């Protein structure tokens, strides 16, 4: 016979306002196996925990049920508390009477009744609790950072500075990500190159960091502390050991291609560095445009190379390495506005550009050497319309969320335009101005003082008339429709998840939200962890972010990696699946459904029905299993069960609910 103690929490008025706590305690005393029940103002506080410990000793309790907030909030707190007592930390059940009861109901009588039912279920389950034990797994103290933008670089530098080895994987030929494309950064107007390129060279030169450019993560298996990662380093056709980065090869290449780095505003060669300050500071050959590789003719760069570093027969290199932790810093991309906004010309007007185009136009090392010249005729625009929220806060055509940085870089673009074209007129169409950051609102107000005309309203249509672009909108403060004629339109487009987010997310078991951003383990309290142990998030892959926020999150994820690496061994999850070899028929449904590759089929010899037979049965890898329970549901013979959530416990809960 178990001896259950029940502790009902008021949580101040969070629970007590909607649930009659003394009535719940009284009901608990009537439940089977409950030998003690009491309430507490704040169970999670120090006095609350002490009261539980005292009750365990005084009443000789062998398991406890706490009716309080969600187990996501304080289950770990109470498990830690039980470590100071005679009880196994898993002899604990939590009835969630806050998030799933008091917070969602208003009627106190109904709330109390529901709280009692939740408690009945928890005590029925607790009656079948069994002690669970963890094991230890070793940690490989080497980190993988996926993505070489500002967040990835910051995370890599922090982990490397702590003394651990880091590999940084970048799919482009150079580190730098989106930040290195930017001209200046708000609100201080530091030139992006002056603060981003030194970071790039620091990463490139750091003794603890290995940079793998033009590389992708192909496969990840394993688990926290021991991820087995397959990396594909694409053929660069240049031997980086021999290449000195002199640039001779780039001078004579006859193949010219539109530069993606310059947003299509300039051309590059087939053998190229995306920009002068690229890291690694060496060129690559783009095989789809190289004449030697595609047609077998040319070979000029090979002749020019003084060190013989060029190899047209280079191939991809696939390597396999073990890492203890992975930081996802794969960033964002801008929404393909032209696909959704026919009313803005769907990309047919050359002078309707995006913010990133504008960054290149205003950049001193960009295609126009920093002169703002409109793409169609290379003339200086005498008037500009800046349109914010293109694709953001637009449920019908774009995304429902606010992209957070556009109000600021929109203000920055207006400021930069009025700075370079002092007699120009600048109209900014906005719905709201959102400037939550240090010095941000001051920056915005200064842009207004520079002379930018802010018009509150969305643009409904852009069309061309006599060489001018006409924007139709409403100034909602005026309450009247307005029209402006301008030479250039800049669309501040929404941030959306990077194209790799889906593939990498599912490979690493990181969930994605409704907008497909990678999700953190808890929106407030675990912002850089994911639900996959050992996988962390940095920067805009978790949601739209500006540079300061990305850097802060990157350093936070680096700290989490270092915490992991500070230990030699990790405690494994105790609540994992177990397989009953007598029941398993080797169908393999569990292997297929497991998102963590924790299940395998193994050949075993068993003595069954007085006969020896050899057959396949499923086996759980305790290091990989995250205890999600998918296999237990998929298993038709009922061979798989989840410790801490056994079939029997769940049936008991359902029975408890149905009996009364």
């Amino acid at each position, binding site marked *: 016979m178990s001896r259950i103690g029940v502790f009902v929490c008021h949580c101040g008025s969070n629970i007590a306002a909607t649930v009659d706590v003394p009535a719940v305690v009284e009901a608990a005393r009537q439940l089977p196996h409950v030998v003690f029940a009491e309430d507490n103002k704040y169970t999670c506080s120090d006095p609350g925990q002490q009261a539980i410990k005292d009750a365990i000793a005084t009443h000789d309790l062998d398991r406890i049920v706490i009716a309080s907030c969600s187990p996501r909030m304080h289950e770990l707190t109470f498990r830690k508390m039980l470590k100071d007592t005679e009880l196994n930390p898993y002899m604990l059940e939590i009835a969630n009477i806050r998030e799933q009861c008091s917070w969602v109901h208003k009627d106190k009588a109904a709330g109390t009744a529901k709280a009692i039912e939740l408690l009945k279920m928890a005590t029925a389950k607790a009656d079948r609790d069994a002690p669970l034990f963890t094991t230890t797994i070793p940690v490989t103290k080497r980190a993988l950072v996926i993505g070489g933008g500002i967040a990835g670089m910051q995370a890599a530098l922090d982990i490397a500075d702590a003394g651990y080895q880091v590999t940084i994987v970048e799919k482009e030929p150079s580190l730098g990500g989106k930040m290195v494309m930017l001209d200046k950064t708000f609100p201080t107007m530091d030139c992006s190159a002056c603060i981003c390129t030194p970071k790039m060279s620091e990463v490139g030169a750091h003794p603890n960091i290995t940079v793998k450019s033009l590389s992708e993560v192909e496969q990840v298996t394993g688990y926290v502390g021991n991820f087995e990662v397959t990396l594909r380093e694409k053929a660069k056709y240049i031997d980086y050991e021999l290449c000195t980065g002199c640039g001779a090869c780039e001078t004579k290449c006859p193949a010219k291609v539109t530069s993606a780095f310059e947003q299509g505003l300039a051309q590059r060669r087939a053998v190229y560095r995306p920009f002068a300050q690229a890291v690694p500071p060496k060129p690559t050959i783009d095989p789809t445009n190289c004449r030697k590789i595609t047609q077998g003719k040319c070979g000029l760069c090979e002749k020019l190379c003084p060190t013989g570093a060029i190899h047209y027969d280079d191939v991809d290199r696939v390597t396999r390495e073990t890492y203890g932790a992975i930081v996802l810093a794969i960033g964002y991309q801008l929404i393909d506005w032209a696909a959704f906004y026919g009313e803005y010309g769907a990309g047919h007007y050359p002078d309707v550009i995006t913010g990133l185009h504008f960054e290149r136009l205003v950049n001193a090392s960009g295609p126009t050497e920093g002169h703002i010249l409109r793409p169609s005729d290379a003339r200086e625009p005498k008037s500009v319309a800046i349109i914010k929220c293109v694709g953001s806060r637009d449920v019908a055509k774009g995304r429902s969320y606010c992209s957070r940085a556009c109000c600021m870089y929109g203000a920055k673009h207006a400021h930069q335009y009025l700075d370079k074209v002092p007699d120009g007129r600048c109209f900014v169409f906005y719905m709201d101005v959102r400037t939550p950051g240090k010095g941000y609102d001051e920056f915005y107000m200064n842009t207004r*003082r520079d002379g930018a*005309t802010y018009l509150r309203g969305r643009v409904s249509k852009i069309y061309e008339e006599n060489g001018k672009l006409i924007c139709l909108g409403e100034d909602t403060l005026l309450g009247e429709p307005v029209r*402006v004629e301008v030479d250039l339109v800049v669309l501040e487009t929404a941030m959306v998840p990077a194209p790799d987010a889906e593939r990498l997310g599912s490979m690493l078991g990181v969930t994605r939200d409704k907008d497909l951003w990678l999700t953190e383990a808890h929106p407030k309290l675990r912002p850089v962890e994911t639900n996959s142990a050992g996988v962390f998030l940095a920067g805009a892959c978790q949601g739209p972010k500006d540079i300061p926020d990305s850097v802060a999150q990157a350093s936070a994820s680096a700290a989490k990696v270092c915490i992991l690496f500070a230990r030699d061994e990790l405690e494994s999850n105790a609540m994992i699946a177990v397989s009953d070899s007598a029941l398993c028929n080797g169908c393999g449904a569990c292997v297929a459904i497991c998102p963590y590759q924790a299940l395998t089929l193994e050949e075993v010899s068993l003595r069954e029905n007085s006969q020896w037979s050899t057959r396949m049965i499923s086996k759980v890898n305790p290091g990989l299993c995250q205890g999600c329970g998918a296999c237990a549901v998929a298993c038709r013979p009922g061979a798989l069960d989840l410790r801490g959530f056994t079939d029997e416990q769940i049936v008991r809960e359902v029975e408890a609910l149905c009996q009364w």
Partner: protein
Amino acid sequence: MSRIDLSRTGETDLDAIARISREAAVRLADCYQCGTCSAGCPMSHEMDLTPRQLIHALQLGLLHRALEARSPWVCALCQVCSVRCPQEVRIADLMLAVRHAAKRAGLRPVREPDVFDDIFVNNIRSRGRNNEALLAGFFNLKSGHLTQDVRNAPRMAARGMISPRFNQVRDRAAVRNLVDKVLRKGGGTV
């Protein structure tokens, strides 16, 4: 409703607006359209454009909306807007500057305040001090509101609030010089 073309705002409009904001010592861009001014304004029920809307028209370069508005003339210059503005925009001063600009453009959307002002200034100029009885009398004559406040006159006289006696300052010439100086400069703001 016809669509306003904001890019066609003439240069002269922008110059005139720049002069208004200079005279009022107001930076129009400082206003972020929160509406505190309109919310506290005791005269807003009499206005065609609320103080916020008036500033917005100026921000957009819509000079004539501002000059034709009744609001600057209805404004009591009580300063509640200026005192409460979180951006320290001196709205009442702007109201006065718009009045001056309207007068320069030959506009006077509400006649009475202008008539009142002129009589008041003349009173000061000729006697160095205002005389309420004279002010009220002339105002009623010039504005055409002949019987306005007449019923109150006996009571006000009984309590010494108005008096037929002229209170004059000793050095009337000095005050006259002062007023003329200001008038030569086209008036002034608070």
